[in-house]
């Protein structure tokens, strides 16, 4: 390739941010200072081009520091990584957390998605708009932030040398600042002050006085940094021991910018610990959530004291084939929504002759109303590290990528810390547990794209391309990440492996039903008394789950199962068993475990419009049925919400059928599911509803 760069130069700060991640450039060819010596070296070939996968973290580095990506910064990244500028621009504009236009360092993302919609997101949106002006600059509406138990939610991302994040949940308009009640002026002024405080938040261990710098690198910023920063984090973690870390990390769960007065638009409050999202926390019958709220998420010793790493020892005892056999016999199927048998996926990958094999843990949890993976990563991070290690051991992967969505700063910080500590203790690295197999985990941070949770789009995103799904076949087990055999599993799926190995496949399969074994995490949100993540054996009914979560706050109108890609059930259908086969027989889906409760205070047409808007926003644009179909679906729903006509419903059905039949990936194929079920099962837009 013959690269052509523009004359745009990066600012000193942009250059510093990129160099901090990639190291200083060695020659003028890569954007360093030109010297005569450059004429005697050639920079090119595979060595130069093989770093394409660093594009996304490099874009993050600039966006984290400056808040947006300028022409000069993009150009410099391209020089450093030998990437054509047009392609890098295509990647940067793909993600909603990046901006290629100037914007303030602090950007507030106000969730307007389903669960928040049901709990007053409109009011938050209005008050934010009153204080900060029209969306686009210092704030923007956001798809689901995965904070549904604390709806309505918002997330502020602060760029700077120590990038920070503040979570607002529930988001409430801030009391008028004492100084200047006039919103926008106060907001802008306080931005920088907040930033300094929020360094604690994302930065992981930054709370301790002397270790500010090292701590920050092991947080969100350091998550992407493969070499230096990781080591610093690991050493300080191991050196300081569990106790010191624990304190720092418990601060993570807590305050962020609490000291800052006159917050921008929303009232700041401490972010509650992860177990806040688990109403059953401490219940001895829990399996997947049993350690959440019991162990200190920062302490490996705590984790081991609660049975941690027993499963990996068992795995090593029975060998890779034994692990796969146990997982096959357990009947475990994927929890991400597609319900594919995990053991078969592992077996198929393990058998591939092409090497290396890769493991990808899909933590790009973006289905509206889903937040279970966040709770696991925040409350029991070592469980995921151990589960990934077992999966890698069984399928022969020397390297695993943990792809976490960018909207989860606390989960990223905790996972980064857990991985560092595990590495320092020999539980990751060249010789895991002294058992002679190598495995390490690299965290990759998403940048705001639902589609990157699709099992092949996630590969493109990691490789530094636009997160567009690939066409299958070939399937990931043959050609996945970097064209190699890849096993890709959801967080919840992976942590199920721990009880399977600890107790044996037979004991695991004894729970649940024949077609759906084990327990399932349900993300209960919406107008319900006790929203949160619930763990129940497969086969429990929706009614039992609703009873457990305190029931709807008003008169129950409908429950959305499976999220935006799922389907509605009526109040008279609450006895549907929550199993893959049971929900399928009832004409809906379990999906990723979303249970969105809607009482009669919620405007269903409004919810449908939000679903349509979600798919329109999140379609990658690759195939016509989805790219245009989701737009036409939204347009028709707007017309229907004004005046229901049979013609528009027929139009929706026809477009929906084509999206389902002809789209490349699951996004387009399911974009019409919820709307269809609302029309058919709930009678939304029916003549009676219209009158």
């Amino acid at each position, binding site marked *: 390739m013959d*690269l052509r760069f523009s004359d745009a130069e990066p600012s000193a700060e942009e250059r510093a941010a990129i160099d901090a991640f990639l190291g200083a450039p060695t020659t003028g060819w890569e954007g360093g200072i030109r010297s005569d010596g450059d004429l005697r070296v050639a920079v090119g070939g595979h060595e130069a081009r093989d770093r394409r996968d660093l594009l996304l973290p490099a874009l993050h580095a600039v966006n984290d520091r400056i808040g947006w990506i300028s022409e000069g910064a993009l150009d410099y990244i391209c020089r450093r990584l030998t990437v*054509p500028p*047009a392609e890098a621009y295509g990647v940067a504009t793909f993600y909603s957390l990046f901006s290629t236009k100037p914007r303030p360092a602090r950007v507030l993302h106000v969730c307007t998605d389903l669960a928040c919609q049901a709990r007053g997101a409109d009011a938050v949106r209005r008050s934010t708009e009153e204080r900060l002006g029209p969306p686009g600059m210092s704030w923007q509406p956001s798809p689901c932030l995965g904070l549904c138990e604390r709806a309505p939610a918002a997330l502020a991302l602060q760029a700077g040398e120590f990038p920070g994040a503040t979570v607002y949940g529930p988001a409430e308009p801030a009391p008028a600042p004492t100084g200047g009640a006039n919103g926008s002026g106060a907001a802008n002024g306080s931005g920088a002050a907040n930033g300094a405080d929020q360094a604690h938040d994302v930065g992981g261990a930054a709370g301790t006085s002397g270790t500010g710098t090292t701590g920050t690198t092991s947080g969100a910023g350091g998550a992407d940094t493969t070499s230096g920063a990781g080591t610093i984090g690991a050493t300080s973690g191991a050196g300081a021991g569990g106790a010191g870390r624990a304190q720092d990390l418990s601060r993570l769960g807590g305050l962020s910018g609490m000291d800052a007065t006159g917050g921008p638009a929303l009232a700041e409050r401490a972010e509650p610990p992860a177990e806040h999202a688990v109403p059953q926390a401490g219940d001895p019958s829990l399996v997947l959530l049993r350690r959440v709220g019991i162990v200190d998420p920062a302490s490996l010793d705590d984790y081991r004291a609660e049975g941690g790493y027993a499963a990996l020892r068992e795995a090593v005892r029975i060998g890779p084939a034994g692990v796969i056999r146990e997982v096959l016999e357990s009947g475990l199927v994927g929890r991400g929504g597609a319900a594919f048998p995990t053991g078969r996926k592992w077996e198929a990958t393990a058998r591939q002759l092409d090497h290396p094999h890769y493991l990808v843990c899909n933590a790009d949890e973006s289905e509206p109303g889903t937040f279970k993976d966040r709770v696991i990563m925040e409350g029991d991070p070592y469980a995921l590290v151990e589960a990934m290690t077992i999966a890698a051991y069984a399928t022969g992967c020397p390297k695993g990528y943990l792809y976490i969505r960018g909207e989860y700063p606390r989960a990223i910080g905790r996972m980064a810390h857990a991985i560092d500590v595990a590495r320092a203790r020999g539980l990751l690295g060249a010789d895991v547990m002294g058992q002679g197999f190598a495995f390490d985990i690299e965290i990759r941070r998403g940048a705001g794209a639902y589609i990157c949770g699709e099992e092949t789009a996630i590969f493109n995103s990691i490789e530094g391309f636009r997160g567009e799904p690939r*066409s299958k076949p070939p399937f990931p087990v043959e050609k996945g990440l970097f064209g190699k055999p890849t096993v890709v599993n959801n967080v919840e799926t992976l942590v199920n492996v721990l009880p399977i190995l600890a107790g044996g496949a037979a004991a695991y399969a004894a729970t649940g039903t024949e077609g759906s074994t084990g327990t399932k995490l349900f993300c209960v949100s919406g107008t319900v008394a006790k929203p949160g993540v619930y763990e129940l054996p497969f086969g429990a009914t929706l009614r039992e789950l609703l009873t457990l979560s305190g029931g709807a706050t008003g008169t129950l109108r409908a429950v959305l199962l499976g999220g935006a890609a799922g389907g509605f059930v009526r109040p008279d259908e609450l006895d549907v068993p929550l199993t893959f086969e049971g929900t399928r027989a009832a004409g809906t889906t379990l999906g990723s475990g979303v249970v969105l409760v809607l009482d009669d205070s919620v405007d269903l047409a409004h919810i449908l419009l939000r679903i349509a808007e979600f798919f329109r926003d999140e379609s990658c*644009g690759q195939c016509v049925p989805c*790219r245009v179909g989701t737009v036409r679906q939204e347009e028709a729903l707007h017309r229907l919400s004004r005046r229901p006509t049979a013609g528009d419903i027929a*139009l929706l059905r026809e477009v929906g059928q084509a999206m*389902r039949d002809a789209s*490349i990936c699951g996004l387009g194929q399911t974009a019409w599911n919820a709307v269809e079920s609302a029309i058919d099962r709930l009678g939304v837009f029916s003549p009676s509803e219209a009158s």
Partner: protein
Amino acid sequence: MSVPLQPPRRLIEITVDGDPVRVPEGSTVLDACSAAGKDIPTLCYGDTLTPKNACRVCVVEVEGARTLAPACSRRAEPGMVVGTATERARHSRKIVLELLASTADLSTTPRAAEWIEEYGARPDRFGEEAATVAQPAKVDNDLYVRDYSKCILCYKCVDACGDQWQNSFAISVAGRGFDAMISTEHDAPLTDSACVYCGNCVEVCPTGALSFKSEFDMRAAGSWDESRQTETTTICSYCGVGCNLTLHVQDNRIVKVSSPHDNPVTHGNLCIKGRFGFQHVQNVASQEDAIPVSGPVSSSVSGSAPGSVPGARTAPADG
């Protein structure tokens, strides 16, 4: 010219609309359908490109599959049972045509009107307010025009410009979803991009969104008339490679240059000289001719079009 012989390939048998078809192993379903004499519409499929299967207008029903399959990229497997005209397949094709025709200007897309008729597509039923990609054409150089109101985002130009042929990577898809569009970095004009004006993107564009400036101007003037055009394939005289050029001539003037896709040297690709460097052969004609004279961009082809910018030497840099 010797073309290396492929090793013999095993034949496999599949069923297309109830009839057995035998095709060499590795063929696509589209190959099999063509062999069976079926006319499957295609837009993003290019005979010289790896199928992107983005447009989904070629979908067929494969027995046992949950969703429809794109014929252009799905490999034929022994025993596959394919339906090309099933209700589901026809329905999806109809909707795809409606979605495209309601979004983009398909007036210069070959066969689009015929398919819309055949499938009974009614693009107007999405209403007056249906979102479109309508926008002014980008005319930023003298050689070719980008009229993205006709773009269906088939990715063929990106693939031809990028790793599949030219390796220039001047354009990419930017943005997401309905807002996605073909773009240079920061939407810069082509003259500031990595474009080398090979025109290989124009060659593969299925809708006429990319066109020669000469064609674009003639269409605007209403003088473009393919029925009066002849196509003559000759050999490019610029260098020794010997690429085949197909000269499209109307009223004794060259209006467009393409290259045969089955030519083993070019596969339809040319360089700036072969593609656009034809003006000198017709400069003898009267300057008052109705056809606008399209000269190459002076900066990018200085030296390759002799005499195109006589006396255009700039003053010395220091003075």
